[in-house]
Each structure stands twice: as C-alpha cells, then as structure tokens.
C-alpha cells in the first residue's frame, strides 16, 4: 500500500512541475528552486509533514521534500539552541544530500566524459 501512495503523490507532484513547465516555460533550474522554496514554506507552516507521513518517499523524494527537510532542521535547531538555530539548522539537516550530490558528481566527472549529442 505504501508503494501506491508513494507513486500517486510523487507522480502528482511531478505533474504539477510538468504543467508549470508547459504553461509558463519556466526552465528546469527555476522549477527546482521554486519547489525547494515551496517545500520549505509548506514545511515551516506544518502542512508538508502530514503528506510525508501519508506518502512516505512519494513526498520526501520530490524536491519539496528537500525544502521540508530544511524547514524541519531549522525548527529542530531553534528548539535546541535558540535563535542561532535559524542559521545552523538548514544546512545541517540537508548536509548529507548536498554533500553526496557534490561528491558523486565530482567522481562521475572524473570517470565520464561528455556524451556526443
């Protein structure tokens, strides 16, 4: 059952992105930024977490989930260490994602060469 919910919600979030691309001609970079910011705001006001509880990876794998991680991290750090948490929480919570993206990208760049189009 959790696969069905993950599929439906994850697919649904991608459809929103697709409609934005087709209707507004937003580039993919702008879509990524928009979705992370949106996820962070939704996470901040507490409406994204219920979706995560419901759809699991269907809500955490799309980029709004990344934004939600930022919001969650920042709020946990504020709880723990006060206002300074607003500065430390975001990157702390997302550090694994950012670091692995950078490390794997670097390794891939060492191994692979650009493909002919």
């Amino acid at each position, binding site marked *: 059952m959790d696969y069905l919910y*993950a599929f439906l919600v994850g697919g649904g979030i991608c459809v929103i992105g697709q409609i934005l691309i087709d209707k507004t001609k937003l580039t*993919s970079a702008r879509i990524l930024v928009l979705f992370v910011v949106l996820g*962070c705001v939704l996470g901040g006001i507490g409406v994204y977490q219920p979706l995560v509880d419901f759809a699991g990876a*269907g809500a955490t794998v799309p*980029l709004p989930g*990344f934004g939600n991680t930022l919001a969650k991290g920042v709020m946990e750090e504020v709880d723990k260490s006060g206002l300074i948490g*607003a500065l430390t929480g*975001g990157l702390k919570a997302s550090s694994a994602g950012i670091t692995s993206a950078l490390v794997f990208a670097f390794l891939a760049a060492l191994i*692979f060469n650009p493909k002919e189009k």
Partner: protein
Amino acid sequence: MENSAKNKELYQDMVKKASPDSHIFKDCVKAFIVGGIICCVGQFITNYLKELGLTQNDTGIYTSSVLIFISSLMTGLGLYGKLGKFAGAGSIVPITGFSNSVTSPAIEFKKEGFVTGLGAKIFIVAGPVILYGVLTSVIVGIIYYFIK
C-alpha cells in the same frame, strides 16, 4: 502574396489552438508515471533500510544518498538525459533531478579546468537551489523562534 501570408497566420493560429492541450496531457502522463516510479524506488530503499533496523532519520539520509548516487551514475552513462527527454518534469522534480543537475555540468565543463570549469559550474543549478532554500529556511527559523 498577401493571401499566403494571411493563410500562414491562420494556420499557425490553428496549430496553436490544437496542440497545447494534447501535448500537455501526454507530457503529464509521462511525468506522472516516471516520477511515480522514481518515488517507488525511494520507497523500496526506505523499506529495505527500515527492515535492517535503521532509525527514521538515518533511513531518510541513506535513501537520498542512494538515489543521488544512482542518478549521478546514470547521468555519467548518458542514460538520465535520455530519461529526461521522455519524462520531462518526472525526472526533474525528484531528488534524482537535482543530482543530475549537479553531475551534468560537472562532466560537461571538466574540459575548462577543475577549478573554474568543473568547480564553478557544478553549482550552476545547485547554487540557486541551495541559496534560495537556505534563505527561506533562515526566514522560517526566525519566524518560528518568535511565534513558537
């Protein structure tokens, strides 16, 4: 002459009217299926790790990292680009799309050097994403501090 120009305009109007909706619908179906499948792969990894006894938090971190690794590898092999041509947002919106947008310029600009090529261009999409994501999170944190 004038007539043919008018006809051309008319024709283009007709094309404009006829194409977008069916286009968008087809694009959306593809995005839905591919995006959904990528999330199911994530769910599979999550379930597997949970069975191994990892905590909720660690499971999330490992799942993201594994997906990011798979996507980097597929990008290097030129497979993720092919998937992207088919799936559109279905391959952009998941975290694998973020990973692809980091790996792709890293490979592309390696020839311009490791510092000003690879090193700078690796952030061409990741930079704005991290900047605006972090900026938003700081605002969320400050507001949360004052209203909690």
